[in-house]
């Protein structure tokens, strides 16, 4: 009889993560960026909105470590204050996507029938549209602005989470542990929360890691296009669209924001790659 007991599946747990080099490198880079975003606004050398009209488009100097923009604002200070909203927007967008996607996926698997067919058709349809294009359409609908951009990117990334959760839930619904819970009179909500959701945690974490850099790139792209936070607020993407006109005169104005965006996204991608490999059961099996 013990064979029945052992056949009950257990969700994979995030324990003893192999400390992959990519997790260490990506994690520490990301920690530096986050630290800069948290502490930065308190230690900025200048007011990010302060104009110095006689010192426009200067290169790096002792007074302005990374130079100034077209109306003499300090680029370092603007970068440091622009980082926090960029990080918050990316995180918020991914969380919106994860929560909405998980709810849609779970309910589709559980309710089934027409609801499942229609909701999954819509999800498939949204998957066929690239995130930036979808976000553009949503921003058109609800107007530009930082919060709307978060919502737009969140909606654009929801379908992947919904598909993922639904496929995991469908697999687990067949399981004996669900049947057992059901026979003991557990409610649908309880089954989903205690007997299905735990199996989705690890894949969802992996998907979060994959979705985060995409969300940051989308946010930067939308603010570059002018649809995100509005001037004079500093944002990484809109700084670059301002810098573009002065590429020939003040190349450092473009280079520094570009480097910051690249470091932010690179740290996330490297970290995501590491997390994905460390948590992917296929990979672990292969490695052994």
């Amino acid at each position, binding site marked *: 009889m013990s064979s029945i007991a052992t056949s009950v599946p257990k969700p994979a747990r995030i324990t003893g993560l192999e400390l992959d080099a990519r997790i260490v490198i990506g994690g520490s880079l990301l920690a530096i960026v986050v630290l800069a975003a948290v502490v930065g606004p308190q230690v900025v050398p200048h007011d990010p909105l302060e104009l110095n009209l006689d010192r426009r488009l200067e290169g790096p100097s002792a007074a302005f470590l990374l130079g100034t923009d077209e109306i003499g604002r300090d680029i370092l200070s603007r970068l440091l204050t622009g980082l926090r909203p960029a990080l918050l927007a990316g995180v918020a967008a991914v969380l919106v996507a994860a929560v909405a996607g998980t709810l849609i996926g779970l309910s589709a698997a559980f309710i089934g029938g027409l609801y499942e067919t229609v909701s999954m058709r819509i999800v498939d*349809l949204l998957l*066929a549209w690239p995130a930036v294009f979808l976000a553009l359409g949503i921003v058109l609908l609800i107007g530009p602005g930082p919060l709307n951009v978060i919502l737009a990117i969140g909606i654009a990334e929801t379908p992947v989470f919904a598909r993922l959760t639904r496929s995991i839930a469908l697999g687990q619904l067949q399981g004996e542990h669900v049947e057992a819970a059901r026979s003991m009179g557990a409610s649908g909500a309880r089954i989903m929360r205690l007997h299905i959701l735990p199996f989705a945690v690890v894949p969802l974490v992996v998907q979060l890691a994959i979705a985060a850099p995409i969300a940051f*790139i989308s946010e930067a792209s939308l603010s570059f*296009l002018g649809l995100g936070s509005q001037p004079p607020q500093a944002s990484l993407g809109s700084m670059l669209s301002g810098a573009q006109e002065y590429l020939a005169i003040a190349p450092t104005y473009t280079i520094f924001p*570009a480097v910051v965006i690249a470091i932010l*996204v690179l740290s996330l991608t490297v970290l995501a790659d590491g997390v994905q490999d460390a948590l992917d059961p296929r990979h672990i099996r292969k490695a052994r």
Partner: protein
Amino acid sequence: MGRYTLRRLLQFAPTLFLASVLVFLVIVSAPGDPARIKLGMEATDEQIAIERARLGLDDPLPVRYLTWVSDVARFDLGRSFQSNRPVTDVITTAFGYTARLAAAAGVLGIVLGLSLGIVAALNRGKRLDNAISAWAAAVLSVPSFVSGMLLILVFAVALRWLPPSGAGEPDDFASQMRALVLPALALGFPFAAILARFMRGALIEVLGQDYVLTARAKGLRPATIIGHHEVRNALIPTVTVMGIGLGSLLAGAVVVETVFSYPGLGRLVVSSIFNRDYPVVQAGLILGSAVFLGMSLLADLAYGLLDPRIALARAQE
């Protein structure tokens, strides 16, 4: 094979319907009263009421949907508020530029991505493989508008080899091609990086298969094994990614075209959003959606062509 294609085409119909309803709902709920936008601020309420009735804005939604679908099917999308030219003209001109850019970036991405992926997989774990992986990670970490600006900085501002923006002189083919180089690089590199990563993974999966061992045991030449048994099979999953990737090239074009002031569809749609030129935005949404859906359908069909097992299994469903 024929049955599989037919089934996929039939399944496409409800998707198309759903997509058109979604696009219609977005357009209907976009802010602003089209009649007021069309007549301007000085129009009286009475004039607006007449215009609303003329445009059919007071009809029930299903009726408006049907009118809208038949307009779209006849390519009658109205006139641009800004230039007063028929929207179809404005859009097709811009789409021609975008198609040219996407084609250049797509060819670059496929050739470069597949070759790098194959080279990386065949040299798995060696320095070359690591270098290619690092390149792919770096390319994917830089948003296309950032890499575009860096390309302008190096090749247009510092070296003065290529123009920084525009699409070249209208009658000068060479200048048009020169203007295409930098945007195509900015757009094509991320696509190449995605394909290289995917091809590498798919090929490594194939390398351990029994039929590869058999081929080797039969004494086939390594080139035959790689080309016929390994790459061909690794291509099957890669083609799907390619289909999705080609669609996202068009989305990436929105950003890249803005960076390079390239007169394509993406820049047109973005500037029309700012100018509240709704007929143009609407046409851009419809065309974009049609292309994205068409791409995923094509990828699906190609999938069945490359792998007869899939067509067979799905036909029997």
